[in-house]
């Protein structure tokens, strides 16, 4: 027989100001189930909790109802309280008489009547609640980090230093991500690669880190502590175990004009290549779309056929001949492996928005109208020009340069509604770099607002304006016109003085927006995490859970969660690592007991429950010669779809059983 104790909270005046709490306590006290009922000013205060704890002992209570704020607020508090006083922590229920009564009801008599009824229902419900134990799940103490950019590298290193194994998955041939493409970094102007490559090397040499380059995540099964991640390596045709990274193959490759992704399409590379000199791993990769030996054997789409148009079709094989290690394998079919992992860190970064939609700026059409990333490559010593800042069109030094801000950012009509956050700073940096390359030249920045939060950021902007005489013009650029003389006229407006301005420039740099990777959505679905309207991954709580996702065991780091600069990305990498290490610090994982269970004596084995289970947590099982359904508690997330689908109620969802819902809904 249930002996329910009911505790009505005044919440100061929040509840008591509207609800006659004494009356509620008095009337509820008459319920047959209720053995004790009282009210108090602040139940969540320590005297309030003591009141509960003492009453449990004094009145031999075995079920508790706290009528106060939303259970989302204080249920855990009171669970701990009653646990301390020896009751199972799940033998409690909260009546939400603040958010859902006193705060939303105008008339105080109505509020009181409603409160009485809300408490009555919880008292009825709690009498049908069962003691529950958390589900213990073993933890596979290996982390999979998806994305080898600076954020992913940071996460991997921190986890590895914490003594846990890491599998670092990178889609491209090398670690490094966007940062590897950068020349120098704001606001310190220290060399990007100089600070990144050591970390890449450290990751490569770390005993706890395994790198999987050219690899993507194909499938994710399992659940926190026990994920099964299926990795797919695309065919590279170079056996990483044999390759000694001598680079001879690259020098011998006859196909010399493959657009170079690493140089943002500015330079050319071979059909077999390492993306850049400091690549980690330094294993070259054959690009099957261009390799003479392989292109025929592939079903090509017409487009890539065009790319190959003028290349002499021959049975090549140069790299294979020259390779001293016999590492070339044209028949490479790629590989698939499934790894077990307890946690997943998603650090897939961002991509630079193509300015092609901005035809008025000639983005992607005019040779000397570049994107931010292209400019980085152009001034980089490892870039296509070896660090000489010249115009792609005629190789001349640009005497005048215009930087156009917010191309694709803060522009719902053509681009994205959000601010890409980093453009203001990297544009200022570009302007400075330009001045360092062309001291005599003039740089203009057309901006809407200059946003420079962050340590020493504003000073950095001032430095550009004051020391290097970079002209900042406030106004959105309307048009970039290519002139007959090969120069570019930029039409804009100076909104501060309110008159139209036009600048003749030799080069225009568009600060293209940061946007989610094109495959962000599909990866999200593979991982079972959610993403926002812009396509960035959603954190569990914008303030309190910045690197968690709604899916336990999957964490976020870097720009895949939203535009970020390097410091923020690194911070998140470390934060995610900390979360992973915290998780791995436990021997087993305590999971909410809110899981489904099958009464095999009532189960017909139709497996309807299994069909509706989003987590494949329900399996078949033989019991007494009958095929019945069986819930894998570790996998079950407690949504209750199965409980709702089972026609003869053989499936019960703990904490939301039919019994409990029934008692709560009955009038």
């Amino acid at each position, binding site marked *: 027989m249930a002996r329910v104790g009911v505790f009505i909270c005044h919440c100061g005046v929040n509840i008591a100001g509207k609800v006659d709490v004494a009356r509620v306590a008095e009337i509820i006290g*008459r*319920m*047959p189930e209720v053995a004790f009922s009282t009210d108090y000013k602040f139940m969540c205060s320590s005297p309030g909790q003591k009141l509960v704890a003492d009453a449990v002992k004094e009145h031999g209570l075995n079920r508790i109802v706290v009528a106060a704020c939303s259970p989302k607020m204080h249920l855990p508090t009171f669970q701990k309280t009653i646990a301390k006083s020896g009751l199972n922590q799940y033998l409690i229920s909260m009546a939400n008489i603040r958010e859902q009564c006193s705060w939303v009801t105008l008339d105080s008599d109505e509020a009181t009547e409603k409160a009485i009824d809300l408490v009555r229902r919880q008292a009825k419900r709690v009498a049908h609640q069962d003691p529950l134990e958390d589900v213990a799940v073993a933890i596979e103490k290996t982390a999979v980090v998806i994305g080898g950019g600076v954020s992913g590298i940071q996460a991997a290193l921190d986890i590895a230093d914490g003594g846990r194994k890491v599998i670092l998955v990178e889609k491209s041939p090398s670690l490094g991500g966007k940062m590897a493409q950068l020349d120098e970094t704001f606001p310190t102007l220290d060399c990007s690669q100089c600070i990144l490559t050591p970390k890449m090397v450290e990751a490569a040499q770390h005993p706890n880190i395994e790198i999987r380059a050219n690899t993507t995540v194909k499938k994710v099964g399992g659940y926190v502590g026990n994920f099964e991640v299926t990795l797919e390596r695309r065919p590279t045709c170079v056996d990483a175990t044999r390759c000694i990274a001598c680079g001879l193959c690259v020098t011998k490759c006859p196909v010399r004009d493959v657009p170079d992704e690493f140089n943002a399409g500015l330079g050319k590379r071979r059909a077999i290549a390492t993306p850049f000199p400091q690549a980690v791993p330094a294993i070259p990769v054959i690009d099957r779309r261009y390799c003479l030996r392989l292109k025929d054997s592939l079903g090509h789409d017409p487009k890539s056929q065009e790319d190959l148009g003028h290349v002499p079709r021959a049975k090549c094989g140069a790299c294979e001949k020259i390779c001293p290690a016999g590492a070339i394998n044209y028949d490479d079919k790629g590989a698939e492996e499934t790894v077990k992992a307890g946690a997943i860190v998603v650090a897939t970064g961002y991509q630079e928005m193509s300015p092609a939609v901005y035809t008025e700026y000639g983005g992607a059409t005019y040779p000397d109208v570049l994107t931010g990333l292209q400019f980085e490559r152009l001034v980089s010593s490892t870039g296509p020009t070896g660090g000489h800042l010249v115009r792609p069109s005629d190789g001349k030094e640009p005497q005048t340069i215009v930087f156009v801000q917010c191309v694709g950012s803060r522009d719902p009509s053509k681009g994205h509604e959000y601010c890409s956050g980093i453009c203001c700073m990297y544009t200022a940096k570009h302007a400075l770099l330009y001045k360092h390359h062309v001291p005599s030249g003039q740089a203009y920045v057309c901006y809407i607002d200059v946003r420079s939060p962050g340590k020493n950021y504003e000073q950095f902007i001032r430095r550009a304006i004051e020391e290097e005489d970079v002209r900042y013009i406030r106004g959105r650029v309307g048009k970039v016109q290519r002139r007959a003389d090969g120069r570019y006229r930029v039409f804009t407006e100076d909104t501060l003085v309110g008159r139209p301005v036009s600048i003749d420039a030799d080069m225009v740099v568009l600060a293209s927006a940061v946007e989610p990777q094109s495959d962000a959505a599909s990866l999200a679905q593979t991982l079972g995490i959610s993403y926002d309207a812009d396509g960035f991954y959603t954190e569990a709580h914008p303030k309190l859970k910045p690197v968690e996702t709604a899916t336990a065991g999957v964490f976020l780091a870097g720009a895949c969660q939203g535009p970020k600069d390097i410091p923020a990305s690194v911070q998140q990498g470390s934060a995610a690592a900390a979360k992973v290490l915290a998780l791995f610090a436990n021997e087993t994982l305590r999971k909410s007991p809110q899981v489904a269970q099958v*009464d095999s*004596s*009532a189960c017909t084995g139709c497996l309807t429950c299994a069909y509706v289970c989003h987590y494949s947590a329900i399996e078949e099982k033989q019991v007494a010669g009958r095929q019945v359904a069986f819930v894998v508690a570790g996998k079950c997330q407690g949504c209750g779809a199965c409980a709702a689908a089972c026609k003869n109620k053989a499936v019960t969802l703990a904490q939301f059983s039919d019994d409990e819902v029934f008692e709560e809904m*009955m*009038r």
Partner: protein
Amino acid sequence: MSAGWKLLRREDLGAFLDELAAGSELWVPRRKGTRWDFDRYEKGTDTTFPGSIVEVSAKALFFPRRRPIARFNPKAKWSVEPVELPSAPRIVMGMHPCDVAGVRYMDRVFLGNDHPDRLYEAERNRTTIIGMRCSEMKPTCHCTDRNLSPDETEGMDAVFAEAEGGYLFRALTNKGEKLLGSSLLAATDAQPATREWPKGRHLVPGPDELMDLYDDDFWLEASDICLTCGACTFACPTCTCYLVADEKFGDEGERVTAWDSCQFLSYSRETSGHNPRRTNAARLRNRTLDKFAYSFHKRGMGSCTGCGRCVLICPIRRSFPQLGAKLKERAEEKKARVS
């Protein structure tokens, strides 16, 4: 008590029924859609009586499908009060012998022990049964194989039969006598026509022979096509199984009995989940044996009255009489084998 018959002229039937209805609730057969059912007689409605069974047994008049037996209310102190017993006098007219036999059997079930069913008792006490002799036997009728006859009067307070120009009535008990005092009834020497009724079409082995067939695989085969739908049990005038449930209004509510059926899988399911009658065969056997064997052992009277309602209602037109006959064959075979 006069043993003689009284004649009611057909044209006076309405008036006579009105007289009966004046004193008490009067229930008579009424055609509803394709079949006959019992209905409360309303003054002045013209009424006819079917010559053979009323498809829907009068069982529900004595043993309703839903019977509140107690009310409970936790306000202040828990209180549980039994329901008021019905006492308004009632006449049920036009029950045929097989249906009345059903009531006789129910008497043994509900009243034949130390703790009689008060509700049933009350229904019985307030009721006077004016039975009706059958003028025909339907293909499904087999009362004559069940020690019963279309002319059987046992259990009736009065009986009537179709006759030349009207109906012949005859009182069988004092209760019945009281109802036949009407001036519309004239003493007569006429006798209801008697007929020789067919017999022995569907004889069933005796209780003990049947028990010998308990483990016979006959049941398995017989159950092949049985849906165990329970329609037969609800139609049967002697199926009296019920379940007890509390129907709540908040914490207030009433405890009710509701018809149940041994043909349902849930009927014999135990709390543990174990079910001694999981198979159709087990359930079919239970019902058959209850009609032809257990009833004899427990109540000294077979509980199949040969009304054939089970045949009429069965979705697959399964014929229990035939089943019985098959059992007979099987019993004979068995005997032959033994000797």
